[in-house]
């Protein structure tokens, strides 16, 4: 009967109830979006880093992977040292460079990765075959489109340019063996990958056996942080950045969004609370006569409190469910905006739906709705019956 009375009371003033529920829904949507934002970037980036099973990156000391043009010399020697550690089961050396070609006399630039195809973790093959020999490469669809090429075509790529001679340097003719999707690149960026030695030769890094970064895969259950510390101590020209450390650095760089999400999330909760408490208070004020009569005929304080709390809960619950749908829509919109950050890997989402976090946030909103009903419920239950009846009769 109490639930029935609570819902009937809300139905009695439909537009008021709908408006309040809409307000709570927007607060819920914003809260959900902020929860998705606060955890989404980290989770999404973490998923990206571990997508290919590599737990560590080794960039030149003092830098982050591909943050600068610095390189690490003596890649072969370093790989041999790393393989001595039994917990390390794979080491993928990667060299990054910019390569150029022309199409209809217009320059086409692409990001090039020199890799070891047997252990690489930078791309996934979509068609054709991998670049296993020194005269082949794989390219992404953006490069093929920009250069007007298809699988099987041969192309001359250059890694440098001599301004005195006005000529490209470090050229090599390569056959497009396969098409791949590059995992860590931003949307629309043309890219190619070829065997490491090929790119080293083209970019003048062959003598130094230089690479830009190593990716390291460890045995399942291995203590990644301990291995990182061993690498830092043993190989002074590299830093060992575990996934956890990389995430911490990302957190630092994107801390603004986390803080913004916390502040806006808190504001949403407060607004949802205020709206519910205002609606329920007004609803109680409207019905003081009825409530006094109910108390006069023997309805207990607890019943009155339950009924008022149920009204607040119903508004919050309805708003939270509506807000869930609305929040998912607005999150997609906001994610589209933030995903256009230049240089951001296409696979990164700022707004990631994590069920547990989302339900916790919405649960908090519903709880705040219940709490919002406490003050008006207490007021309703504390009405002096006789005086209220007298005042209502006069009114």
């Amino acid at each position, binding site marked *: 009967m109490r639930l029935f*009375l609570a819902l009937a009371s809300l139905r009695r003033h439909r537009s008021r109830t709908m408006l309040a529920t809409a307000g709570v829904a927007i607060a819920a949507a914003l809260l959900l979006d902020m929860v998705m934002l606060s955890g989404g970037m980290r989770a999404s980036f973490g998923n990206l880093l571990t997508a290919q099973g590599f737990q560590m990156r080794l960039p030149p000391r003092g830098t982050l992977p591909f943050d600068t043009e610095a390189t690490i010399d003596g890649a072969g020697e370093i790989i041999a040292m790393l393989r001595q550690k039994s917990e390390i089961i794979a080491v993928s050396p990667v060299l990054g460079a910019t390569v150029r070609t022309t199409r209809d006399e217009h320059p086409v630039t692409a990001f090039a990765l020199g890799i070891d195809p047997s252990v690489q973790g930078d791309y996934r093959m979509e068609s054709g075959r991998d670049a296993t020999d020194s005269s082949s490469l794989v390219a992404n669809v953006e490069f093929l489109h920009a250069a007007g090429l298809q699988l099987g075509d041969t192309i001359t790529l250059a890694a440098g340019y001599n301004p005195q001679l006005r000529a490209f340097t470090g050229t090599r003719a390569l056959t497009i063996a396969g098409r791949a999707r590059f995992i860590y690149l931003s949307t629309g960026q043309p890219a190619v990958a070829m065997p490491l030695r090929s790119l080293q030769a083209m970019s003048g890094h062959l003598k130094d056996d230089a690479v830009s970064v190593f990716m390291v895969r460890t045995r399942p259950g291995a203590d990644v942080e301990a291995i990182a510390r061993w690498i830092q101590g043993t190989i002074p020209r590299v830093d060992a950045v575990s996934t956890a450390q990389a995430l911490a650095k990302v957190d630092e760089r994107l801390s603004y969004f986390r803080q913004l999400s916390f502040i806006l999330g808190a504001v949403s909760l407060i607004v949802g609370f205020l709206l519910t408490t205002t609606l329920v208070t007004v609803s109680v004020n409207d019905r003081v006569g009825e409530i006094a009569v*109910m108390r006069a*005929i*023997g*309805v207990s304080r607890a*019943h009155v409190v339950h009924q008022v709390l149920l009204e607040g809960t119903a508004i919050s619950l309805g708003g939270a469910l509506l807000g869930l749908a609305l929040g998912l829509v607005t999150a997609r919109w906001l994610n589209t905006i933030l995903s256009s950050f230049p240089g951001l890997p296409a696979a990164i989402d700022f707004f990631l739906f994590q069920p547990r976090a989302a339900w916790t946030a919405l649960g908090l909103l519903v709880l705040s709705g219940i709490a919002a009903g406490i003050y008006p419920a207490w007021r309703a239950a504390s009405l002096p019956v006789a005086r209220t009846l007298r005042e209502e009769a006069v009114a």
Partner: protein
Amino acid sequence: MTKPLIAGDAPIVSARDVRRDYPLEGEAVHAVRGVSLDVERGEYVAIVGPSGCGKSTLLNLIGAIDTPSGGTVSIAGRDPSAMSDREVTRFRLEHIGFVFQRFYLMPILSAAENVELPMAERGLDKQERRARVRELLAYVELAGRARHRPTQLSGGEQQRVAIARALANSPDLLLADEPTGELDARTGTDIIALFERLNRDGTTIVVVTHDEQLARAARRVIHMRDGIIVHDEVLRAIA
């Protein structure tokens, strides 16, 4: 409808030197000033007097809606002022029925649901409640209006529903504050007839009224002025 009347029983209501004061801008207003009265089981008592004489306040004290500033009120042998709020509320639910001038039905409930409300609060099971609702609505001659909302009922019909609601838990005592105050003369007559029938069937009734016709229908009339009883006359003895 209620417990059978037995002559010689202890009074259902016993008030001794009851006072009720209200603070008003620093001064005390003495709404009830030392009233003593007994109401026997089965009586039909009307309390009359000019506006502001304290009759409604006295009714509220008898109904345990209000607490006396002094003196004692005993209802069915119990002193409500010694009870906690929860106990008093429960006491009202089980022993006292109220009828108000402005009916005070829940507009969101149907006639049947309004009558059912006190029984639901008491914890009666659904079947029992529904059966009693049918019985009560038939008694007040509104069996065909069970599903109607208060806004769909006339004033007289609303008051009859309110009376049925007041009788829901078979109270020891039925209290009515100006029950015909918002009704036209003809409808008021119907309500008066209903009260008479209730009393004949054994219900103890105390009404507060300005309505002479209602007062004459009672067996005993208590006249109040300025917070005290000035005259207490028995029109007809309890049969």
